């Protein structure tokens, strides 16, 4: 196990290095001059060329590409991602302000999705090819088909029209005022959680189906156990493994959900930060965020694989 963890950690290095390189290259392909953008772009009228050159120098844009690349990598290692072009604040500080909201949203949404998904998926598997199964499948495929931002728009619309509700403007951390926090977060959490649950339901259904065909399940039936005992004690326990993986790997899905949901609900989280940074052409921020999200993704995948090994005694990693 220890060698396996070590091997995986070592494999992470080239992946993350590659990701950092790719992000760097993407940002260099962008048409337009960042320094010019800071002064208001092409439409800003006359800009003093001296000022422009000074700004380029300050941003390190007149260095050779290789030097810029080395600076970026060195910055990544020290968690120094430069400063936002828009606010002048260090990117990492801007990020830390917004992190609690997104983390809370992600965690609660995952919880909601699991609470919905596992009973539904199990039910569909046990009653395969009956109307129960069809209804669950239609609901879960539907959940995947309905765009998250549209669910958000409809939720807001309903709340505004029927309850005179207005989206709160400032984030209240749960440790300051749990009630205010919850009343703000509940709708986005349900929006993301519902969509997320669609994926988990499908996964639960198919893994329970697979497990139900195993020999030891037949043995359990043959022993004369009741359906509830067979399904919950024997099948569900083993079917949970791939579902755990999914909850991890669908982190990507969740990030996508955060991007659109935070935009719809005008929540000041990481997801909306990405969109705003892209819209404002705040390239250092985009570069840093995309890289950090990729890193989070890689780390979570590793953790999921390790949990997998932890839960399944049959898996022996070399």
């Amino acid at each position, binding site marked *: 196990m220890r060698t396996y963890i070590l091997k995986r950690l070592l494999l992470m290095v080239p992946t993350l290095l*590659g*990701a950092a390189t*790719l992000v760097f290259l993407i940002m260099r*392909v*962008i048409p337009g001059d960042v320094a010019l953008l800071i002064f208001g772009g092409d439409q800003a009228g006359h800009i003093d060329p001296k000022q422009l050159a000074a700004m380029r120098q300050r941003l390190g844009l007149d260095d050779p590409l290789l030097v810029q690349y080395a600076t970026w990598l060195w910055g990544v290692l020290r968690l120094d991602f430069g400063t936002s072009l828009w606010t002048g604040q260090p990117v990492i500080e801007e990020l830390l302000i917004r992190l609690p909201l997104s983390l809370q949203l992600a965690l609660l949404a995952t919880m909601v999705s699991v609470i919905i998904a596992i009973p539904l998926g199990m039910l569909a598997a046990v009653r395969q090819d009956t109307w129960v199964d069809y209804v669950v499948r*239609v609901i879960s495929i539907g959940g995947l*088909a309905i765009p998250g931002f549209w669910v958000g728009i409809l939720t807001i619309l309903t709340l505004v029209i029927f309850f005179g509700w207005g989206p709160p403007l400032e984030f209240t951390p749960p440790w300051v005022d749990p009630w205010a926090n919850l009343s703000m977060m509940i709708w986005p959490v349900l929006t993301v959680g519902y969509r997320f649950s669609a994926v988990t339901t499908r996964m639960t259904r198919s893994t329970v189906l697979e497990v139900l065909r195993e020999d030891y399940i037949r043995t359990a039936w043959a022993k004369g156990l009741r359906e509830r005992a067979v399904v919950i004690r024997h099948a569900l326990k083993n079917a949970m493994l791939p579902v755990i993986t999914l909850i991890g790997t669908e982190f990507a899905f969740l990030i*996508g959900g955060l*991007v659109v949901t935070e935009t719809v609900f005008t929540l000041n989280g990481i997801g909306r930060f990405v969109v705003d940074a892209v819209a404002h052409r705040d390239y250092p921020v985009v570069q840093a965020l995309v890289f950090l999200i990729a890193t989070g993704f890689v780390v979570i995948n590793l953790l999921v694989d390790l949990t997998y090994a932890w839960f399944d005694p049959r898996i022996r990693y070399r």
Partner: protein
Amino acid sequence: MATNVEVAHATATASLAPRLTLVEEVLKFARTKPLGAGGGLIILGMMVVAALAGTLAPYDAYQADYALQFARPSAEHWFGTDEFGRDLMSRIMYGARIALFVGFTASFIGCTIGGLLGVTSAYVGGRLDLLLERLMDILLAFPQLILALAIASILGPAVQNVVIAIAIPIIPRAARVVRATALSVKENVYVEAVSALGAPQARIVLRHIVPNVVAPYIILLTAQLGGAILAEAALSYLGLGAAEPTPSWGLMLSGSALSYAEKAPWIPIFPGIAISLGVFGFNLFGDSLRDALDPKLRGR
């Protein structure tokens, strides 16, 4: 494409079952997979609307009519009009073209490039395989929407750029699946036999390996279609997809749609239904197609 499926199918079942004609295959699919057939019907309907949008649409999708801003749904304008007085139903019908175009081209480009890389990686093996695998790992490190977002932000808002932005994140996912299948096909005795007979490499790859990865390729393609349509809607909603006045479904939901929503709730409602229904159809169909084509799941 259909002939390739038949080849793959025929090689697998030639001696086991009587060969079915295409019509019989379709009927069998409709009988055994009612949900999938329903999805197929939705797709077909969407295609018809997209193809005949010019004749079916009651009004010009681009023509603004300021006398008719925010008209309620009525006999003249079934879905109402938007803030420029444009007929929403006509815009949704033209929007089907954009959704289908982006969905099909993006998943086709992504799956084909990914598939070719996967087959090459599996067949050539060695250092090239290792290099390509690491490259795919790097691309896979980025969540799909985030990568698409970054690419779209570089390319700027336009329909063809959205296609590229959505296709690139599909490549590593397709390469993974096709590579795995190609690796197992390559180990088959018949591949060894034809190569012992001295068949040229190109022939081995094209005649013996590629037909056998067609099934997973098609499953992948249909599975990505719904996601690609949804991604287009999300990117357009975020202002990185199609630009005004293109009648993209996602774009119709963006920006002003929510601020006018209290006054004219039909503006955000109908395009959302169109997206959901279209993606729902593709997902249903793709799901059942996977069940029908995947030998591991057959007979379940």
